[in-house]
């Protein structure tokens, strides 16, 4: 079976959960017998190839084939790169900002940077839609040139490409919902994005969601037949950062970490409020908010207003291994997301032997047993859980031990098998 997969990012350039997830799934699928994956990605991100993109411009769309050999598996995955200016998954918020006229610059789009403060153009909205359209054109080219049995498109920007490929080839389309605009916007949905998502869902023969939380949104908000929607939980790659040195702690303070984009969706203000409660009763603890995002400045002001900045630290955006170093230094990891379709980072924290507190409004909460689950707004429960884990060593040890065991069982191989079953079902139905 050959799968034509339209993704968004591919290693080494992973900016969000989507890249990690689609990469993990692809690897898992490649390990299945009789399964080959052709992965299509738009490239436009801080790569050395970025120069090529700007050189070629938006008019021509060269397609380049590249064999990528994975270390773990003997089978090669065909990776096809589509050169375009598309911005990756982390940026819908910025896209948002722009469409709402919050950024009204007139510069021409050149590059994006990861800090979230991106040099967008005022006409970027139209240009983004343009890019998406272009991506779907390329998808048609690829679909007509390649041999495959099924199409798999990851998240809304790739849906049109999937639809186009389906139209050309007549092969069934599976779309993979890693997030919906309801998660990204906090309910303030962009109708253009919604339409694109809805079209993708309607055109799909099967919809895979990353959690039942997302599945419910797809069913209720996009009016999709529940039989068509199936949940496949994400997994996590085995850690390959064990050789990393963790800086020795020269102080006794415990560290509580928030790690992620500082945006409304991730609930950073609840973390700060919980910190305030804990700090009022516990002297030897420090809070770290790692990451960046449009709410960062507001959060810094908030922490300052609460007069806790001597114990509350901001790191800014963390890259590569810094993320894992930060995790390994932590005593508790908190993910207070207001709306999180899945949330892979708690799994990475658990791999790094860190107890996690997650919001009940996250998809990963459906999956995990050995994690504290609180409502994102329940700062008292959150504070209590932080205190409990920091104060009672038996609790912390239990979480670490059981959590590690639990997370080690979450294999992409299993998720990939599930996806493959879905492929088989879809093929049976459509043939």
């Amino acid at each position, binding site marked *: 079976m050959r799968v034509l997969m339209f993704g968004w990012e591919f290693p080494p350039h992973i900016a969000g959960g989507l890249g990690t997830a689609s990469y993990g799934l692809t690897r898992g699928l490649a390990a299945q017998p009789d399964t080959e994956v052709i992965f299509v990605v738009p490239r436009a991100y801080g790569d050395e190839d970025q120069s090529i993109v700007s050189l070629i411009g938006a008019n021509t769309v060269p397609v380049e084939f590249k064999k990528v050999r994975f270390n773990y598996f003997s089978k090669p995955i065909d990776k096809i790169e589509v050169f375009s200016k598309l911005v990756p998954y982390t940026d819908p918020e910025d896209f948002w900002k722009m469409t709402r006229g919050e950024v009204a610059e007139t510069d021409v789009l050149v590059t994006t940077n990861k800090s979230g403060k991106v040099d967008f153009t005022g006409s970027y909205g139209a240009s983004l839609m343009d890019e998406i359209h272009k991506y779907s054109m390329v998808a048609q080219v690829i679909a007509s040139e390649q041999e495959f049995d099924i199409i798999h498109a990851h998240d809304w920007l790739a849906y049109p490409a999937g639809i186009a490929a389906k139209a050309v080839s007549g092969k069934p389309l599976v779309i993979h919902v890693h997030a919906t605009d309801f998660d990204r916007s906090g309910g303030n949905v962009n109708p253009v994005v919604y339409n694109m998502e809805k079209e993708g869902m309607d055109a799909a023969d099967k919809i895979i969601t990353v959690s039942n939380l997302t599945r419910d949104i797809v069913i209720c908000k996009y009016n999709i037949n529940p039989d068509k929607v199936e949940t496949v939980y994400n997994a996590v790659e085995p850690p390959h950062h064990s050789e990393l040195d963790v800086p020795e702690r020269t102080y006794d303070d415990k560290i509580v970490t928030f790690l992620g984009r500082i945006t409304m969706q991730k609930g950073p203000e609840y973390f700060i409020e919980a910190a305030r*409660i804990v700090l*009022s*009763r516990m002297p030897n603890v420090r809070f770290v908010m790692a990451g960046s995002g449009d709410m960062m400045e507001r959060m810094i002001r908030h922490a300052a207003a609460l007069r806790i900045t001597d114990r509350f630290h901001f790191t800014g955006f963390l890259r590569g291994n810094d993320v894992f170093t930060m995790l390994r230094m932590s005593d508790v990891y908190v993910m207070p997301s207001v709306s999180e379709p899945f949330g892979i980072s708690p799994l990475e924290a658990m791999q790094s032997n860190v107890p996690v507190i997650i919001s009940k409004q996250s998809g990963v909460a459906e999956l995990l*047993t*050995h994690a*504290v*689950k609180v409502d994102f707004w329940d700062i*008292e*429960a959150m*504070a*209590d*859980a932080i*205190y*409990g884990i920091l*104060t*009672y*060593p*038996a*609790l912390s*040890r*239990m*979480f670490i031990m*059981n959590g590690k065991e639990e997370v080690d069982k979450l294999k992409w191989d299993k998720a990939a098998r599930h996806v493959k079953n879905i492929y088989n079902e879809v093929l049976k139905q459509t043939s």
Partner: protein
Amino acid sequence: MSTAQKKAICLYFQVHQPFRLRRYRFFEMGHEHYYYDDFMNESILRKIASDCYLPANKIILDLISKHKGKFRVTFSLSGIVIDQFRLYAPEVLASFKELAETGCVEFLAETNSHSLASLMDRERFERQISIHTEKMVEYLGYKPTSVRNTELIYSDEIGSWMADMGYKATVTEGAKHILGWKSPNFLYCNSINPKLKVLLRNYTLSDDIAFRFSNKSWSSYPLTAEKYVSWIKGLGSSSDIVNIFMDYETFGEHQKKETGIFDFLKHLPDVVIKKTPFVFMTVSEIADNYQPVAVLHVPSPISWADEERDLTAWMGNELQTAAVSKLYSLSEQVNRCGSDQLMRDWGYLQSSDHFYYMSTKFFSDGTVHAYFNPYENPYQAFMNYMNVLSDFEIRLKAVAPANVHDEEVNRLAAAVETKDHLISELREKLTKFEKKGRIVRTKAVKPKREKSPAATAKKAVAGKATSKKPIVKKTASRKTTAAKAKK
């Protein structure tokens, strides 16, 4: 003995509800000292009272009068549930008293708090039993002659303590790993002190009612009194006694009224009395009427909980052992605290249910552990309990110092304070004398002038030394200051 020829059925029901803790956040520590979820405790108890205790007691009372003393049952009420009846449902306590007055109902002694004290040490265990006995006498007018331990926890050692306390019999689980080829349907005795008779629960027959009664996928569903009695009868010559022990909440709560459990209970004695050679006996009656067939060896504690029939439901994981050991590490201080309020909380916090909620078996074999469990998971149960316990410890420390060392420090600190006080007094006196001395000096003749400053200087030095090292030199300094003062 004629009764000894007969076979006996022993029905024993356990009655207990814990004081569940309210959600107690860490930032309340040191401020809020009320730990219980009154609303939850009251509503649960009221519900069970009306669904189970009251109707079941009524049925049993009717059965006793109907069968004129031939129907006999045994109960045990934890001290905590008696407290709850007094608070929330006094009519239940009255109905138990009524049952006690029939003379056909036996009540067992047990640990007051439904606690794990027997696993800690003998003294605590005995104290728990004696508090419970006082309660039984006070509220039911009944003094127990047999005893049972929390959750039927039993070992040779615990049994010997029971025997030494003068009890004639106890009940425990007929655990397979203890019995081996032996049958639970005979009377046994303790291996250290054979005076204590041991009745073993027939878990198959007990669980047929307690767990399987309403299970429609069970091959024997529906269970009728006739069918059940035919099984008992089938035990035939291979048994003397059949011990059917269960939670009283089985009737109307675990098995709802709609399952027909009350009809089953109503008909059971009829069928037994009419169709079998079996008679009903209470625990102590069996101990009086039968001879033990063998000594029972139970080197390490067993219980009636879960599949393992051991202690892992309460002390199976790290959270539980941490909580239990933290709790009992305070017991020596509690003994010295002398506060009724603290003693009451101490009792309620010992309830084994708190540890039961922390069981991580909850994840796999959860249903029983989840019963009336106020927590979402064991971690939450642990955090909440530890927060409460921390506040309890803070209060305790304020009243009774943590240990002998602290006490000594406190004593010495107090001594230092009184010494300091004394020194400052003496110093005042000294300055008075000095003033006097000056007055004298101005008046006096020259030779005295040299002597007196030297003497005052000496006094001052001595005074300083004593104030710096009051503890070490306290006796010596007292002598010197006293001596100076005399001068």
